[in-house]
């Protein structure tokens, strides 16, 4: 799984945990295992404001992009976040 982040100044917060191909975003679970290899799922197909861009499965790995909220004067890591590649299951340590 490869999770990219799209930073955005906003006042809400994001909490993501992962279990295999299921992402739990702010308490709501999204099972992405239904996306077959080579397929592309538009962001609009996922009812989540933090999912942006298409969701793809490339060579068995899911690729998706999440909005990363930050407040005023964010750290560089939060304003210009690096993608997260194959994060372990559990609560993700989002860039702060």
């Amino acid at each position, binding site marked *: 799984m490869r999770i990219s*982040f*799209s*930073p*955005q*100044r*906003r*006042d809400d917060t994001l909490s993501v945990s992962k279990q295999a191909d299921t992402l739990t975003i702010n308490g709501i679970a999204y099972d992405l295992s239904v996306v077959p290899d080579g397929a592309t799922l538009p*962001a*609009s197909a996922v009812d989540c404001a933090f999912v*942006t*861009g298409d969701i793809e499965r490339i060579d068995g790995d899911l690729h998706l*992009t999440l*909005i990363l909220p*930050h*407040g*005023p*004067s*964010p750290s560089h890591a*939060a*304003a*210009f*976040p690096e993608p997260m590649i194959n994060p372990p299951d559990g609560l993700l340590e989002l860039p702060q």
Partner: protein
Amino acid sequence: MSDFNFVIQTDDTSALELKLGQVLQTASTAAAASAADAKASETAAANSATNAAASATGAANSASASAASAEGAGDSAATAYDSATSAAASASSAGTSASNAAASEGNAATSAENAAVSATNSANSAAAAADSASDAAATLASALTKAANLSDVENASAARANIGLGDVDNTADADKPISTLQQGALDEKAAKGENGDITSLTGLTTPLSIAQGGTGANSANAAADALGAYRKGTILGGVGQTDGVPIGAIIERGKNANGEYVRFADGTQICFGVFASTVPVAPGGYVAPAPTLPVVFVGTPAIQTEILFFAGGAAAGVVLFSIRQGYLSSASANFGVYINSGRSSASDVPSLTLGSVTAQSYWGTFMAIGRWF
């Protein structure tokens, strides 16, 4: 019958012996008489013996009494000796005392003589003191005369008037003079009331409170903060609001991977940025840009985008004409779509007729204006 001696002790200590055997051999007749005589004598002897015994007992008692008397006489003699010794010592002491008394008598006589002299001197001194007192009284009486202005010491007010001090105790408080130095010092003091004469304050250690017209602070920054005023250091920063009232800075500026933004305390928000792609776009193909904005808006902002197609890769090479068409999408609002005309801006002219150049990359910009609350 055997001989026996019979001895009788009498008062004169002479012994009477009778040899009865001889009497019996001489005459029996006489014997009887003698016996009778003897019997009488015996009785008499017995009486004498009894008397002698009584006398002996009395003698013994007398001897015992004499011995006791002798012993008491001895004791009395010892006591008398001791008394004599004490008397001798007392006599010696009496002699010494008499001698001392004689000496004391002499001293007493001398003291009496000295006392008489002292008494005489004291009498003389007393007489002299009496003379001095008399002189002093006369002097005082002459000093307190009318001419000396103190003759009326019984009346304090009259006495003051007599010596020219009649006004000492009758000056009204308002008429009492103050010294020039005191008046000068008073003139330096600020007036109470409107304080028109105060031109500056120095040495003020406690800042005036806001209620007093001050700021309650010791520095310009603290003063501005105390007054809730914006200053150079607080104009920029995080912007926030509560019920439309700003609670943060006036302007917030930010930047992230999606672009830059400016947020104003009044709710206005502007963002802008660029996006690029190296995905080829054939003539007639289109791009519907939906960039993720660097900041979130409330409602739908007004978004302007522009896309340039390039004949080369990575925004290089000749720019191709693009055709923008309005477009409404629930996902991307009015971003619009951009069609690659396939016509080179270097060799062709704008036309709705498609050319043949495939864009190897495109590059676009966006700007959005809206509100953040």
